[in-house]
């Protein structure tokens, strides 16, 4: 991946760090939205290199982390029905539901498959006409186009044994939920580069204006992140609040029109329960009326009680940036990746897992 090396250049990193030290005069708290950004910050040791006045808190942008226990339970139930094949992205498998994870369901005999693309699931449905193939469609706006496209493909080919369990979540409503919380401490956002590749910048302008907060769309490599932080701090120091695009090599102001059209064709916006945060109005995608035959929730009568979150997990406070993982009394003791109390410790992009795996500070706790 030669094209990435310039974004990992130690000399450039040094220059950005120096510039940050030079311009920062006040204490600022920045939130990076995306779990991929969190991991890059921790994995590359960037947090220790920042000026002391800058605090990074880690946002809700890990789809695995915010998928509610009830939705995991739905997926497990679907997987356990005879003649069902449940397909999922890999890192959903370990997330605990109220009774078990998909990995445990698989070990007990359920047909659960890890795929990289929902289009493979459509293919699987075609090859197994006597079985029901269900794709567990989780993710932010990033994964929505491919999941929507799988439904369009299935419909075009009249494949009727395919459906999706949609659990899509949307970034802007989550940002608003965080900002309107009384305890909010966030001064600026680094918005998630990949999400904006699809959606563009438009929906962020009203948020920046309403809450008077800088929003910098940022990439994932060390130089991207430092540049994003620098742009945000620059705005804060000048008392500005604009939407800026650090990740312009991938993000256009209007986003990806074709991807957005596909999303609109298949999904409608719905309320969604976020693990640890609760219900956020108009914060998710659900399969729309036109494609209801492909909505696993309508197709199968999923008969399970509503599951409560584990009260011991403070993931809500962590995803709102109110607490750091190591401020949780269970971090590293009762809650570890091998026996997680909540999703941020499970997912490869969860903030707790990032601290647990990479941060020397956290390990010493």
């Amino acid at each position: 991946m030669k094209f990435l090396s310039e974004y990992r250049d130690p000399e450039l990193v040094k220059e950005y760090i120096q510039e940050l030290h030079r311009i920062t005069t006040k204490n600022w708290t920045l939130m990076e939205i995306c779990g991929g950004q969190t991991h890059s910050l921790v994995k590359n040791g960037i947090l220790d290199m920042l000026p002391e006045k800058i605090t990074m808190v880690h946002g809700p942008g890990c789809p695995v982390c915010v998928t509610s226990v009830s939705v995991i339970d739905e997926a497990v139930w679907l997987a356990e029905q005879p003649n069902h094949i449940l397909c999922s992205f890999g890192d959903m498998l370990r997330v605990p539901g109220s009774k078990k994870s998909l990995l445990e369901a698989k070990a007990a005999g359920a047909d659960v498959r890890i795929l990289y693309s929902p289009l493979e699931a459509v293919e699987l449905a075609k090859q197994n006409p006597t079985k029901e193939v269900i794709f567990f469609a989780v993710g932010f706006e990033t994964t929505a186009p491919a999941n929507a496209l799988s439904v369009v493909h299935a419909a075009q080919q009249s494949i009727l044994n395919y459906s999706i369990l949609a659990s899509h979540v949307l970034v802007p409503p989550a940002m608003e939920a965080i900002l309107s919380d009384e305890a909010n401490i966030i001064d600026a956002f680094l918005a998630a580069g990949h999400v904006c590749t699809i959606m563009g910048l438009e929906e962020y302008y009203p948020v920046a204006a309403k809450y008077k907060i800088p929003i910098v769309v940022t990439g994932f490599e060390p130089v991207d992140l430092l540049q994003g932080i620098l742009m945000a701090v620059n705005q804060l120091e000048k008392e500005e609040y604009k939407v800026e695009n650090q990740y312009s090599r991938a993000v256009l102001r209007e986003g990806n029109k074709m991807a957005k059209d596909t999303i609109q064709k298949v999904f409608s916006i719905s309320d969604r329960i976020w693990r640890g945060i609760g219900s956020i109005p108009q914060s998710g995608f659900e399969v729309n009326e036109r494609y209801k035959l492909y909505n696993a929730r309508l197709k199968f009568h999923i008969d399970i009680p509503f599951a409560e979150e584990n009260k011991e997990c403070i993931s809500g406070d962590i995803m709102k940036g109110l607490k750091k993982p190591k401020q949780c009394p269970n971090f590293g003791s009762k809650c570890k990746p091998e026996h997680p109390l909540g999703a941020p410790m499970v997912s490869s992009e969860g903030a707790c897992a990032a601290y647990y795996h990479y941060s020397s500070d956290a390990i010493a706790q």
Partner: protein
Amino acid sequence: MPKFDFDVITLGHGSGGLLTHRLLQSGVFDILKNDLLDQQHDGASFSLEGKTAFSTDSYVISPIFFPGGNIGELAIYGTVNDLAMCGAEAKYLSLAFIIEEGMTMESFWIVLNGIKRAIDKAGVKIVTGDTKVVERGKGDHIFINTSGIGIIHPKANIHHNRIEVGDQIIISGNIAQHGIAIMSKREGLEFETDIVSDSNNLNHTIIALIEELGEDIKFLRDPTRGGLASVLNELAEIRKLGFVIDQNSIPIDDQVEGACEMLGLDPLYVANEGLFVAIVKKEVATKVLELLQKDENGVNARIIGEVTDTHVGKVMMKSRIGGHRVVGYLTGEQLPRIC
């Protein structure tokens, strides 16, 4: 491939009866031929001189054919290399097959030839073996177990107890080749790449190192499952010392790194098959590197770090951009990520 009067392996080929006899006589014995195996007894009889090492491993890889090799070669090299990590030159191996009913003779023949290539290259003999066949659905084409005996080199003194502060950590080549080569062919994940497994025998390389530098080679380990990070974590924990590595000096092929990025895997945890980590006395580190870089198994060898008395029990990595992070144990299996 010789002509067999059957195309697929059936339960009968593991019965110990006529079919087993035919399978062995028509191919296996011929291809693995040596004086000890030719005794065709229940076990092999031989004498050994010197301190010996003994090791065993089972091979259940899927898919059984992969870029750069097959399960047959892997089963030989794996055990030969485990012995090499004890400072031993492998001599005699046992070979046991558990075959799933329905495996084609053609596939079996390819595996057998892989074994033949590997034993010739490593210079070892298969002296005893076993063949079982299980019902369809109860295996995954073929499982292989090999055990091996080797003679420890008189100058070898390999033990983790010998690791001290200041010792240098050397890796013999590019990491994560094998795991990514396998991943690129696994069902549901297939992607186009030229990445081949690093599966190879390390015995000649190791013996040459020990011959030259003896006790200054303090510890050897092949980072197979769990990769480089797991080996270093185990050592840091057992020895209660700190291990510091530098990301910039860890050799990795661009394509392998790209595939890891794409799949969301950390190459430090990805499996290797023809690779080893050596912990050596500081004074000989450059010499080790010099010797290794002339060897087929060490062209890309690098010093990647050193043993310290700070952050005891942990592996710390200096990141490419100069930050620091802990490299911990892997929890469960690395699963591909969402986005």
